[in-house]
């Protein structure tokens, strides 16, 4: 067989006298059945070259293990003990898999008379070996090819590498019970919706409280999105989902431009994921639709699914930035700050990778956003992010000036800046401008006596007209604070002071927005 097998195969699998430890660590396969083939060949010396004797080595291994004549040194026994110690169990490796591997390691060592030569204390546990091998397979797909298929592989097989990975995951997935997998860190869930670890905890809690039926429903809905064959290949019903959290990106096959957003509850199905060229067309379509129809609910939903498709395919380039930027701007325009903040958070990471886009524009938004949410810890971080170069930028400078004007209570300057806001910052400033008006009025009422012309307030606090000013004052105080005198309306400051103080306190309660980092 050795002569018929390709050379790389022979080196990997031929029984040699290399130390077991190194052989094991170099072994690319992780299916125990595979591994045992080397054992069998060790015994029988030559295997039938069609390479299909899976059950056969199984038996031989079982025969060998209990052979009484092998005296196992204490180090080996300790090693076995450690294998079974509960704290050393790995969720993604099932008990039987581990045992197989263990048996292989020991019998191999015994066969080669290496029992005393191996540093058992340092030798990786079988479950760790299995994991390492899996990782290696994932990191180097070409390895996976011959490591997994039980048939002798040919170079032409490389094109099918993804498939072979999939089948294998399914196999191993069946082995490990679902409650084990629950412990696994599910990265897909992380990626899909949760912007930060803190959030994640909250959301997970949320999830558990939801009824199972709900979850089922969502799953069904998701499956419903599948175009064409959502049958056997659908990862939704394969149990392998979180067996390997490090699985690589999905490559989409969906050609439909529009797609509704569903929060993923399992690994994405390539059939419902759109590849980059389709996504690019989809974005053009969405831009057109937004201009024509302006239906925010629809657009937001579409953008979310767009983002999701990018995420699950690990697409991170200029286009990704573009999608997030456009979604962020639309969300801003519509005052959907939760959605805006999700985009902003992602954009920050994307900008850090220098993928282009408009980093300063969004840095400015970020500062304004934290003014609105009054999140000082985050503001500190945002300030630390601003470089000297950024400060040259008009929008960043504006945002920084806004911040410092507010910090010093300089409402005069603040409202000058408000009336002259670059980009779409005004949408953000609109969110807190009334709050700052109340703050300013509280100060004005304390400082001016006995009254001030309402005209002055209109000009100072950026109102559009005296009527608007009067309405604002009346909304937050009472009629008796305004008085007509010498042909002008005047605000009686001492009467109104307490009212505005109260209104200010209410407006300044911390803003809590969903999706905030």
């Amino acid at each position, binding site marked *: 067989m050795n002569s018929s097998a390709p050379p790389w195969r022979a080196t990997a699998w031929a029984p040699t006298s290399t130390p077991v430890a190194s052989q094991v660590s170099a072994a690319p396969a992780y299916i125990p059945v595979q591994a045992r083939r080397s054992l069998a060949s060790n015994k029988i010396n030559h295997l039938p070259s069609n390479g299909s004797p899976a059950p056969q080595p199984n038996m031989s291994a079982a025969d060998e293990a209990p052979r009484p004549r092998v005296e196992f040194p204490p180090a080996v026994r300790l090693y076995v003990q450690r294998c079974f110690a509960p704290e050393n169990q790995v969720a993604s490796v099932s008990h039987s898999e581990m045992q197989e591997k263990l048996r292989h390691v020991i019998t191999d060592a015994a066969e080669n008379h290496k029992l005393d030569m191996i540093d058992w*204390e340092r030798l990786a546990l079988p479950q760790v070996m299995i994991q390492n091998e899996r990782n290696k397979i994932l990191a180097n797909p070409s390895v996976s090819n011959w490591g997994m298929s039980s048939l002798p592989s040919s170079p032409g097989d490389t094109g099918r590498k993804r498939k072979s990975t999939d089948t294998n995951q399914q196999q191993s997935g069946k082995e490990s019970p679902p409650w084990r997998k629950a412990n696994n860190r599910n990265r897909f869930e992380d990626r899909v919706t949760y*912007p930060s670890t803190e959030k994640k905890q909250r959301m997970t809690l949320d999830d558990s409280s939801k009824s199972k039926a709900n979850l089922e429903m969502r799953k069904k809905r998701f499956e419903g999105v599948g175009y064409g064959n959502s049958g056997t290949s659908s990862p939704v019903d394969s149990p392998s989902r979180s067996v390997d959290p490090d699985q690589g990106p999905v490559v989409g096959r969906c050609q439909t431009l529009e797609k509704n957003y569903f929060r993923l509850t399992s690994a994405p199905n390539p059939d419902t994921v759109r590849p980059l060229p389709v996504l690019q067309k989809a974005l053009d379509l969405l831009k057109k639709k937004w201009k024509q129809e302006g239906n925010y609910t629809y657009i937001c939903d579409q953008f979310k699914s767009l983002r999701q498709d990018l995420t699950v395919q690990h697409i991170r380039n200029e286009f990704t930035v573009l999608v997030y930027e456009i979604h962020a701007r639309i969300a801003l325009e519509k005052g959907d700050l939760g959605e805006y903040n999700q985009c902003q958070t992602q954009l920050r990471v994307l900008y850090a990778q220098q993928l282009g886009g408009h980093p300063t524009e969004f840095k400015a938004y970020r500062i304004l956003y934290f003014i609105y949410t009054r999140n000082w810890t985050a503001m*500190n*971080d945002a300030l630390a992010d601003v470089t000297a170069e950024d400060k040259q930028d008009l929008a960043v400078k504006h945002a920084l000036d806004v911040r410092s004007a507010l910090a010093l209570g*300089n409402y005069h300057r603040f409202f000058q800046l408000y009336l002259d806001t670059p980009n779409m910052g005004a949408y953000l400033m609109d969110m807190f401008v009334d709050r700052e008006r109340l703050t300013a009025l509280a100060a004005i009422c304390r*400082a001016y006596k006995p009254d001030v012309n309402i005209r002055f307030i209109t000009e100072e606090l950026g109102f559009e007209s005296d009527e608007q000013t009067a309405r604002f004052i009346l909304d937050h105080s009472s009629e008796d604070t305004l008085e007509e005198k010498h042909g002008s309306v005047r605000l009686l400051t001492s009467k109104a002071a307490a009212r505005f103080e109260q209104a200010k306190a209410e407006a300044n309660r911390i803003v809590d927005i969903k999706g905030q980092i």
Partner: protein
Amino acid sequence: MELANQFRRAYSTASGPDLAAVLTPIATPNNPHRLHSFYQFTNIQYLNKDLHTNLFHGKSPKVPKPEQNAWVDIFAAYWEAVGEVLKCEDRHPGSSAVAIFTAWKKLANALIRGYSGSSGLPAWTLPCLYTVGKFLRTFAIKADVEAASQDSSGFGFQDDLSVEVEKNANLEEAARIMNRMFTLCLSDRAPIEESRKWGIYETTNLLFKTYFKINSVGLTKNLLRALNAQSDDLPPLEAFPKSHIVTFEYYVGVIHFLDENYAEAEKHLSTAWRLCHRGAFKNRELILTYLIPCHLVTNHHLPRKELLAPFPRLEQLFGSLSNCIRKGDLVGFDQAMSAGEAEFVKRRIYLPLERGRDIALRNLFRKVFIAGGFEEAKDGQPPIRRTRVPVAEFAAALRIGTHATGRTRVDTDEVECLLANLVYKGLMKGYIARERGIVVLSKNNTAFPGTGV
């Protein structure tokens, strides 16, 4: 074996610190080979047996069997970790910071098991927990650095925010283990004399440090909440060792500080400052870094020269800024702020320091008031200061030092706005009569409260 002798000595005198010294994975100056000799005294095959013999046989004090086993487990894990440390020191191929961290994690887990299990290690051994926790943190940081340097490919399998998360993966794992240490101490129900509750603040400090490092200051709130819920069962703060309390109060102060809760922050930081050891230069400097801005905001006090003198770094941070505030030099203040901005922002003290501008402004306007002189004294009466000051005079003061180009010129409305703010914040007493363009200040030396005029 020397380590074993140390262990026995510490155990017979029930000295926690001595015991913790045994578990410190660094060589001491007077015994540079202590780790080597410990590692070489046995091999993996006889490890447990040798440990048993060395730690507990002979004339050692009677230690219950389960406790003995716990220590053997702990020292076995320690032995392995020391092996990894030595490998790293000798630049042995295959050595790595991650391997050290992994081995040290085992030690931490063995120790936690020793406390929580039936073996029930006594509470006086808690310093071991601190030491092991401390090195868990350092080794995790080193492992993260190592992982970052190896994984420079940038685009791995991560997605979204995980870039930042992965950066601290090991330290986060360490934090989870430390959290178990925290619970171990907090939930101990033994009578207080022999309770692990005495370790609660030190383990909290460990977690504080870690959370600050991984930029999750928010998580500290959970700890404080847990502590608060248990506060009835805890001994009073004063009963704990000062070293625990100083660090704890410092962190609690900084946490409030970051929330702009300066009054509360000041309280805790002052306690830390008061209790801090004279010789702990670095710690005193750290406390002052936050306490000084606190004082500036809460009661407008500036640091005296004598206070800053021993701390050149603080002198550099706050020196010129305080001078400008004292003199009411706004231009100088703005310059000092922008000169120190990078450092201020990094230390998260920019926002409170910025508020010093109000004090500088107050001092400047106070000068205007004093320069205004006195009203004509009515016969017999003591002279009264001129309390009606035109807004234009304040505006003139603001223009001092600024270049009177169009851009920087201050208009009257802005001057009024600044005046209104000082009045509103209680730094100035009086009111603005807008139509007449004057400020009417309070009489009887209360125009600028707390400054004598």
